[in-house]
């Protein structure tokens, strides 16, 4: 009998501690199923209740995440639950916190937007919860199988959400495009996983890390092809160039509240998995994968920023800016094995980016008129004169994305550039600087437009009134962007703890 098979326990059910490690995901997954049932008995006019239920579920999951943060701290030797398939660590819980915050904000701004576009169905909230569950599972996934399945869980939910407007051709097109290209990328990810599995004999990240570290899996061309194919798959999910083709179309076609969620949460979750796999499971292959990551990183920064320059739609501009931001986060990833600051910077950047970008999309969402997204540049001209506070918030988000202090975006950039310099990747930092300078053009263009005098003869756009919920979301994201930009330590210490607690550890 082989050693491997001998290790297999006979039909042992998961224990209580396994479930504890998965508590936020279990709560959210359970809420997803319950919400489906609630949808059946909720009258159509009362669907806001479903949003309220989702909020309760997300808050509960957030509560358990916070509890888990301290529990995981008390159990420093927890090395994953469910036979090592899932990592119960502060890294995953940090990402959970970011994801749940994003989901909460999206759910809060959704009802009024969906009502205005006539899309208010219960399935929306179910799918948001399912996607969030998938993202949280991805954040904690410690085996290739769980990574793949949670990627698919979140992707399939998002395919449907992108096509949520069933009569809108652009929405349907976006969904189909996303689905076809997403399936294509999944196949690459899978083939990479197959090769890694074949080379190391395991699908659990910890075992893979051990196999590579101990030299059992020699640095073989087949293994490297596998690693590169996995990078392709992840690069697609984080929308890094040159695997970003879907991003602008899907962001523009999908309903804006979905775009807000997708642009932030998918990127955060996929980056969590990317960092866990590359920085913590493959650190011994760093010399090999570094080149590939640096290539993707530079290409994303250059392509994203240059393409964003010529856009005339806010949603498309933010899509290209998201590609560029993925490039900046990749700077942190590319320097992570040399310097812990790389991972910390990437985590900080992710949190800062999600607050800021969500705020920007929230502004577009709450401004949108009946049945129409006001995302053309022409339609925000003079916004500041009619909606001074919303415009000021949008300006702040643009400045944060461009990396001006005193916003959180500045420290994100600062931390990843520091990591790059510390680990000797000076050219990467220089590329980052050059492209950041370019990015100021298109971010400030939006601000300039909002503060320009509205044309007298131009079509007057029907900006919606700011509701309490929309205002609250914008206020929250604004406050977060500023607070984390000044009191950096608040977020920085948490990100440091997340980096230090990350599994797998050799």
């Amino acid at each position, binding site marked *: *009998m*082989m*050693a*491997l*098979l001998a290790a*297999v*326990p*006979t*039909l*042992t*059910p*998961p224990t209580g501690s396994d479930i504890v490690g*998965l508590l936020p995901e279990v709560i959210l997954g359970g809420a*997803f199923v319950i919400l*489906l049932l609630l949808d059946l008995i909720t009258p159509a006019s009362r669907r806001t209740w479903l949003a309220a239920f989702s909020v309760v579920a997300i808050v509960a999951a957030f509560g358990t995440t916070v509890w888990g943060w301290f529990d995981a701290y008390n159990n420093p030797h927890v090395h994953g639950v*469910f*036979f090592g*398939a*899932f990592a119960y660590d502060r890294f995953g819980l940090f990402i959970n916190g970011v994801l749940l915050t994003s989901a909460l904000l999206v759910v809060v701004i959704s009802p009024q937007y969906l009502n205005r*576009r*006539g*899309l208010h*169905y219960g*399935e929306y909230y*179910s*799918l948001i919860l*399912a996607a969030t569950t*998938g993202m949280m*599972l991805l954040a904690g996934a410690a*085996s290739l*199988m*769980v990574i793949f*399945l*949670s990627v*698919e*869980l979140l992707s*399939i*939910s998002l*395919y*449907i959400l992108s*096509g949520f*407007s*069933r*009569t*809108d051709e652009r929405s349907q097109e976006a969904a189909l495009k996303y689905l076809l290209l997403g399936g294509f990328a999944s196949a690459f990810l899978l083939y990479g996983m197959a090769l890694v599995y*074949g*080379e*190391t*004999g395991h699908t659990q990240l910890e075992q893979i890390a051990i196999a590579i570290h101990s030299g*059992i*899996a*020699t640095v*073989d*061309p*087949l*293994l490297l*092809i596998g690693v590169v194919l996995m990078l392709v798959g992840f690069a697609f999910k984080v929308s890094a160039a040159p695997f970003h083709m879907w991003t602008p179309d899907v962001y523009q076609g999908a309903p804006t509240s979905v775009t807000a969620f997708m642009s932030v949460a998918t990127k955060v979750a996929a980056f969590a998995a990317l960092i866990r796999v590359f920085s913590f499971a493959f650190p011994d292959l760093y010399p090999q994968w570094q080149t590939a990551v640096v290539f993707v990183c530079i290409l994303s920064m250059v392509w994203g920023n240059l393409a964003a320059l010529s856009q005339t739609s806010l949603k498309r501009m933010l899509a290209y800016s998201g590609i560029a931001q993925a490039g900046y986060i990749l700077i942190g990833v590319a320097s992570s094995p040399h310097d812990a600051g790389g991972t910390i910077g990437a985590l900080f950047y992710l949190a800062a980016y999600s607050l800021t970008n969500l705020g920007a999309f929230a502004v577009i969402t709450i401004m949108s008129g*009946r*049945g*129409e997204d006001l995302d053309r540049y022409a339609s925000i001209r003079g916004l500041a004169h009619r909606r001074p506070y919303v415009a000021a918030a949008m300006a702040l988000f643009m400045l944060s994305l461009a990396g001006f202090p005193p916003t959180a975006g500045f420290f994100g950039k600062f931390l990843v550039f520091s990591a790059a310099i510390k680990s000797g990747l000076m050219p990467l930092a220089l590329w980052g600087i050059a492209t950041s300078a370019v990015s100021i053009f298109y971010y400030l263009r939006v601000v300039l437009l909002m503060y320009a005098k509205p044309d007298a003869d131009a079509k007057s756009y029907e900006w919606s009134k700011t509701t309490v919920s929309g205002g609250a979301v914008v206020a929250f994201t604004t406050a977060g962007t500023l607070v984390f930009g000044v009191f950096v330590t608040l977020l920085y210490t948490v990100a440091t703890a997340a980096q230090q607690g990350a599994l797998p550890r050799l």
Partner: protein
Amino acid sequence: MTALIIVVGILAVVGAVGVVLSTQPLYSALSLVFSIGMLAILYLILNAQLLFAVQLIVYAGAVMVLFVFIIALLNPKAEDRPILDVRAVVAFVAVITITAALFATAHNGITYSGSNFRGAVVGASHNDQDPAYTKHAFDFKPADVNSGQAGNVQTVGGQLFTVFLLPFEITSLLLLVAAIGAVYLTRRVPKTEVDT
């Protein structure tokens, strides 16, 4: 045994090429069914009996029937565009490169050449006397089934509910999401939905 693998493999490739080159979607679908069937035979050779059954029942049986059904429903026309253009050249080069690269590394690489076989290195046995390693193709005698070796339904099933319970549970959510999506997307659209 290798000869059989090659023959079945060639047939699978023929089916795959048929998928890409057929002008009628229906022919593509039927070629894919053929290719899937050939792969099922390979699974059987590789002692993956459960996967053999799943491949035939789920893939060929359910998924491809769904495809054929949709094709019949939508009745799409054949593509009127010449197959050969720039993209085709790119695709052709991609096919040749990926295949050659992978085959070359598999055949001449460090880890899969005969004497240095990966299975031996990562812990699985490479002993000619080991019954698991020298197991015959198509071998699914009851004795083997009970001995807990790779490739039988009981082992796979047992693992699925213990070590791989979490992935298994995730698939249940996944299927639920897919079901909701299919129902939502194809449900009749009420008049209240604003058309933009």
